[in-house]
């Protein structure tokens, strides 16, 4: 008893003395215009390849006065210094005029294709430290906007500031809930290195396999706060075959490692665990990978996203209806 009192007192003191970190809405709560993932059919490419990309974008706004549109910058940025996408931004200043609707100059749609230039590799430079092979980075930029796109430059916010904005018909700039600017990278090697997008076997909810077309059904939570709502396990199965070797990675023992594979969950309503590691580069398949899903407080039709990524640009996803009845 005395011990318990002592511990409770110490808990109180620790709470009183701990640093105060604020809480924000979780990242995996989709309540705005979002690009969640962009998949390329060739994460590792070679010169001359045709690369196809498709995007998983979703408009999570409650009110959708204007529809979300996805635009692609038609020019692919080649080999920016240190592979940093923002190093491509200065080139946009000469390509796009300020204060002009760029929509006609951009490619609109959920997919994009381009050919890797034959001469993209140039002459290999001196090898850097570590075991990375010679390669070049190509960067594809795209954006989701509920209006039209204009070039705005850095506006004094630093070299990494997004140089485009989304504007409505009155040329009023829309906020982050209506605009998102994204990039996707493709790595080009002299010879093709095996690297495929991971596959998904199935998704399980509450121990049962989910039919992607039927989705998940839960009753609304009756508790006043969603944190108090009961959680049910959500898990995803990725086959062992997707766990590819990673020649660049060396384990602590000096052996060649494998990819790191993880899953990110997003939901438009309710609450879901965010990231779960599925395969570790050194120890392989992770034993316990299940996350939690909580129903929202109100009934409605929601959406659950499970995006599986590996650390070499491989991506795949599931988009599941989430019925709250």
């Amino acid at each position, binding site marked *: 008893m005395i011990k318990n009192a*002592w*511990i409770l007192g*110490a*808990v109180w*003191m*620790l709470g009183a*003395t701990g*640093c*105060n*970190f*604020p809480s*924000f*809405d*979780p990242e995996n709560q989709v309540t705005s215009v979002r690009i*969640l*993932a962009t998949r390329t059919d060739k994460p*590792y490419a070679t010169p001359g390849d045709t690369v196809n990309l498709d*995007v998983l974008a979703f408009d999570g706004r409650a009110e959708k006065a204007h529809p979300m549109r996805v635009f692609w910058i038609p020019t692919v940025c080649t080999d920016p210094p240190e*592979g*940093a*996408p*923002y*190093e491509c931004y200065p080139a946009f200043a000469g390509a796009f005029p300020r204060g002009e609707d760029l929509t006609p100059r951009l490619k609109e749609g959920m997919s994009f294709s381009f050919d890797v230039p034959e001469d993209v590799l140039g002459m290999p430079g001196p090898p850097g*430290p*570590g075991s*990375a092979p010679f390669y070049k*980075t190509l960067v594809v*930029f*795209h954006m989701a906007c509920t209006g039209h796109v204009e070039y705005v430059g850095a506006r*004094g*916010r*630093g*070299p*990494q*500031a*997004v140089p485009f904005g989304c504007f409505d018909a009155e040329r009023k700039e829309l906020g*982050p809930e209506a605009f998102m*600017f*994204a*990039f*996707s*990278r493709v790595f080009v090697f002299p010879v093709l290195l095996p690297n495929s997008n991971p596959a998904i076997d199935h998704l399980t909810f509450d121990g049962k396999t989910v039919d992607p077309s039927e989705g998940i059904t839960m009753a609304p939570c009756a508790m006043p706060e969603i944190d108090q709502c009961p959680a049910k396990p959500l898990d995803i199965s990725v086959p062992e075959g997707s766990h590819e070797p990673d020649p*660049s*990675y*060396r384990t*602590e023992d000096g052996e060649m*490692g494998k990819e*790191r594979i993880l899953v990110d969950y997003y939901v438009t309503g309710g609450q879901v*665990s965010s*990231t*779960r*590691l599925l395969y*570790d*580069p*050194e*120890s392989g398949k992770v034993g316990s990978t299940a996350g939690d899903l909580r129903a929202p407080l109100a009934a409605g039709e929601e959406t659950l996203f499970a995006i599986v*990524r590996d*650390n070499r*640009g491989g*991506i795949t996803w599931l988009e599941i209806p989430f019925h709250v009845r």
Partner: protein
Amino acid sequence: MARLPRFVIERKDLVGGIRRLVGSKPRALAMRASCPPRTLATLTDPPLRRGAAVVFLLASLAPRDALAQAPDEPPAASDAAAPAPVIVPPRLKADPGVKYPEQALKERFFEEVTVDLILEINSSGAVRRATVEAPRGHGFDEAAVAAAEKLVFEPARRNDKNIPARIKFRYVFVPPPPKLTGRVEHQTAGSPIAPASITVRTADGAEHTTQTAADGSWALENVTVGPTHITVTAPGYEPQSADEELTPGEETNVVLRLLPRKAPEEKDAASEDEPPVQEIVVRGERPPREVTKRTLKREEIALIPGTNGDALRSLQNLPGVARPPPFGGQLIVRGSAPQDTTTYVDGTPVPIVYHFGGLSSVVPTEALDKINFYPSNYSAVYGRGMGGMVDVGIRDPKKDGRLHGMAQLDLIDARLLVEGTIPKTGVTFLIAGRRSWFDGWLGPVLTAAGAGVSTAPRYYDYQVMLQKDFGQRASLRLLFFGSDDGLEIFNENPNAGATSFTGIGTHTSFWRLQARYEHKLTDSTELKVTAAVGQDSVDVGFGALGFTTTELPISGRAEVSQKVMRSVRANVGIDMIYSPYDLHLRLPRPRPPGVPAGGPEDVPLETTQSGNRLFGGLYTEWEFMPWQGMRVVPGLRLDYASSTQSWDLSPRLNLRQELTSGSPRTALKAGAGIFYQPPGPLETDPVFGQEGLKSNRSVHYDVGFEQEFGPRVELSVNAFYKQLDRLVSDGAGNVGAGSVYGTEWLLRYKSDERFFGWIAYTLSRSERRPEPSEPSARSPYDQTHVLTTIASYNLGRGYRLGARFRLVSGNPYTPTTRGAYDATTGSFQAATASPPNGARLPFFHQLDVRFDKTWTFTSWKLSAYIDIQNIYNHQNPEGITYNYDYTQSSYVSGLPILPSLGLRGEL
């Protein structure tokens, strides 16, 4: 032709000597004339040797008809027929005396000087003209002439007629002896102790004794110049001693505070308000060759609110030291990065000075003798650092033959200290140790709180010392000390993230076995040798990543200090570190801002190295005292670093001018010097670092003054400028640059029986430019305003109340907005403003309060305290945090109200 008359002159001078001058080879007659009467009254040495003197010598320079002639000389042959006239020489009637000239004292000229004069004395006995035969300079000639013109003689006579005369007159100026004064006080109450017996052993081995007056004061005059040992004993008190260097013509004032030796009957009645006793010297910005000391007593350090009585944490309250973040055990000195400030224990470098999180020092306050803290412009004795420097001195064991002990317990740790003398050996010892115990309660607390992680932090340190004195001139000391910090954080849900994060484990430890030998070879030559061996280990692991380093440093330092002449001392020394090491690192590849994660290169980098590092330094430093109150200390240091395979030459100069010789003291000071710092091990690593690096460089400039206002209040003001260049920049070599400039103010009330406190204010600016093509920007360690006020008041009956208030500019930060979304990895990039650190958090302010209560028992003493940080619970912003896409931000606040309790017993 005039002939020398022969006279017999009898004269009793001021010091009572009777001299007889006969013939043409006169002897010198010394007369003390320079010292004030009260000084003369206590002279014990022969006046001919000690006193500035007047010597006079008669000569036959008057016209022939007025020439005085000696009566005891046979007349010349040509005068044999005439009756010999009776000639009586002039006789000194009044002599106001002469002083050793002030000019010579100011110029630190302390030689014995003789000035010969030709005096023309008229028939009424007045000196009509005084002419110096051979000028001596330093104000001696002017002083001699001025004094001679005031002499009054009984005129020379031929037969019964007064006649003019011309004589030779000699002044011998002997430098005035130093004066030693002092006061004996009760250790804490400050009340005078009388009677107390003072024994002074001077450089010539003589012992002088005296007693204190009713007000505790005492004085000794005519003591010998040079190192002096003072011992005070008083009935009912512990004896106390001190060492001082006495300078001619200067008064040295020594205040000694005695600790009551409690008899049983006294203890019940003893005041319960006696704080701990020993003193620790904290010297701010004072090079070791400096003249004066700035002292904080240990009782002050132990009572500063918000520090838990930790001496090294008290440094963070001095001007020039920025406020570290909470749980940040860092010394940010004059805008320099923490790693630019080097730390030593008695001259031996140590890798850390605080246990993790800055909770406490690796050397407990109870074992400290002094902390030498140099914000900049430190002596050529020290190198390989371009920021500040801290040298922690561990005190000698008590030598009174008794056993002493101390035990302390608070919420963080428990500590123990035992010291005394090993019987029949003359060897004294000190054993101390400390271990944290909050790992005993924090783990269950975190588990009960459902924190998801459990921690097991713990630290301990230890010190063992043996010391043997060989007479008064030599001592040998062996010191074994070390520290060990361990922290493990276990993640109870290791897969709840992007990695299989199972936890973090860190283990940092070091130990040193140090031998120190000090020998005063002669009165003017001192030798000090320190050597140490040890081990430094760091083991940090997080998942499959981490690093492990082990070093076995062998360090040595030797210095010879030679007094070349009275106003010149030379110091020559060498210091060296040879350090074999093993290193293994497996860390993520460094990623510049704006470079996204993922991709073929986003794999850990790994390196395993074994080798050795060698750092050697040669230095010389000279102390000149060209005139009174002036000290000029030029120094030169030559360093070699094997990691860069290069030599660095560091000239340095420190100046100090005391404008007054007594209290209230006024002093001006200035310094300039070049400081080099070799790149760190990671910066020169072939995988993680760069090749071809040179040492970072900094040029320090510092000017200031010190002004006392009465015996307790002192103001110290400094202005400083640091020019930084050749800074190692990531991937770009030694292209970085920067500057730090500012001013520091310290207004301090020195402690008395009731109160101590100070106000410290620093105004500064610290800038860096990583590469020439980039703009200069605020450094992350820039804090424009740092104001610290401390006050502690003794309420009586064992109660004491103290407070510390701090008002500090917020730390700089770089505003961040939403950048592009990496649709491959699923993360937003941060768009950081340029230049960095362009914004600043709001002002930090915090009030800490400490309350102490002491009970004194028959044979021991018990103290309890509560130290409450941030008593009005201000939510100070310590950082800024963003949501996932950087569209929302909020401050992260620091420590709210934080009480800490402690108990301490002393034997």
